């Protein structure tokens, strides 16, 4: 799949923002209003920035409101509805806290739940895609949630949950790659089923057009194996292993925390890029590509 920057930014940033909201909602601690305010604004900014960048991906962003209508069936719609709800509830929760000092814990829990739900919906947009076997797995929401929680915990400075989250994240990411690498073959979709031609090996002789088309640009993306390996190692290291090791070895304070955030976010973007770039859509079979 084409690793569109707008979508990578959308999923990565909104994931971070919602993750932060989870921790601000569940374990706000006793932050000073201005500290809480800064955290809340950061969470809101990340989430909204992510959501806004997703609009760049749209042909008609001005109609985005229509996207909220199909929550009964569409994960994207659900994600939109939940995201708005989350933002609203969380904003209310934060505003009350900061402005009136009212620390309404249940509102925080609700916001956290909604935030998790939103991240889950985002993930399900991809996980539901049967034609993309690598995504079509419970590991996808698991991974998205782990990323969101790990990033959120780190941003919130909740080191112990972060430790666990990074461990889970590393394990899930490794599992996702392992399983993902086999997913296409296991999906049962082949050149033979795609064409219904069963009497021998099927190969593409001539593509429908000599020029490119939307489908190829959007869904057929090829990266070299060597590239993938390097990127995977870098991504996993930066996003999870490094923070994990650092937390285990050092006491995480301001500068280090800042560096770990940078490391994690860099890793997040690399792995998210890979999430798209490595994902193969079955339509590629019609173009002789996987």
């Amino acid at each position: 799949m084409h690793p569109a920057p707008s979508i990578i930014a959308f999923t990565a940033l909104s994931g971070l923002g919602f993750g932060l909201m989870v921790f601000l909602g569940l374990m706000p601690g006793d932050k000073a209003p201005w500290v809480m305010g800064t955290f809340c604004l950061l969470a809101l900014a990340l989430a909204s920035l992510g959501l806004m960048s997703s609009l760049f991906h749209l042909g008609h962003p001005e109609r985005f409101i229509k996207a909220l209508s199909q929550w009964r069936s569409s994960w994207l719609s659900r994600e939109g509805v939940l995201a708005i709800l989350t933002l609203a509830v969380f904003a209310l929760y934060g505003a009350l806290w900061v402005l009136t000092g009212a620390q309404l814990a249940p509102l925080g829990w609700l916001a956290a739940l909604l935030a998790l739900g939103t991240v889950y919906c985002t993930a399900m947009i991809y996980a539901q895609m049967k034609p993309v076997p690598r995504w079509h797995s419970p590991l996808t929401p698991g991974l998205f949630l782990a990323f969101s929680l790990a990033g959120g915990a780190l941003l919130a400075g909740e080191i112990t949950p972060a430790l666990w989250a990074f461990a889970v994240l590393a394990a899930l990411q490794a599992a996702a790659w392992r399983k993902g690498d086999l997913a296409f073959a296991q999906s049962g979709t082949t050149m033979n089923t795609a064409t219904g031609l069963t009497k021998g090996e099927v190969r593409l002789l001539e593509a429908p057009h000599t020029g490119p088309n939307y489908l190829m640009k959007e869904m057929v993306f090829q990266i070299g194996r060597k590239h993938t390996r390097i990127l995977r190692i870098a991504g996993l290291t930066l996003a999870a292993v490094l923070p994990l090791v650092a937390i285990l070895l050092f006491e995480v304070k301001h500068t280090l925390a800042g560096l770990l955030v940078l490391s994690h976010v860099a890793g997040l973007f690399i792995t998210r890029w890979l999430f798209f770039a490595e994902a193969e859509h079955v339509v590629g079979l019609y173009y002789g590509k996987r």
Partner: protein
Amino acid sequence: MTTLPQKTEKSLGLVIDLDTCVGCHACVISCKEWNTGNYGAPLSDQDAYGDVPMGTFLNRIHTFEVVPENRPAQTVHFPKSCLHCEDAPCVTVCPTGASYKRVEDGIVLVNESDCIGCGLCAWACPYGAREMDAAEGVMKKCTLCVDRIYNENIPQEDRVPSCVRTCPAGARHFGDLSDPTSSIFHLVEERGGIDLMPEQGTKPVNKYLPPRPKDTELDVLGPLLRQESPGGFLGWLDQQLEKL
């Protein structure tokens, strides 16, 4: 799935005969021509006379080779457009409801004025049957020529999709695949019509008729010529001439 009709009154669709398609692309261009001037936004072309021309098409012809063991390789021309699936994932993923399956005939359509151009439906389609128009920012797909097949301004016999009407080889058939009395239904029965990617669970309405057995798959022995006349060549010739 809440947004797909439980049942459609008809299942209109296409049956494509891979044994007959000569890969001429007539249906591709006819489709483009009809649909760029009719239902919804035009099908635009970017860099039309330039280095990387790229336009929106609703129907494209792929060419595959089948390489069996111990027999000559075969070439198969393979037209592909929307299959108007019964369990259309492109409909259920759509966040706006722009993508829908019509109750009366099962046609899967995009209501372009509701489409936000998110592209999700194209991802959800395993067949590559949807293309986002780069100029209009809305999703385009085969309409089964919904503005032809019921169109009272068109003579009755021409109320078929543009691609079907134009196909010189007669490799494209149109009809109600849920009607066991229809000729198209029979055709599918008789020729063992198949679903593409059945494992994707989309239950396509469109069916493909596989190529008939070819080359030495046919009667391997075949007939042989024998000289039957006892008198040799001239004897035979005399016999023949007697018949004059």
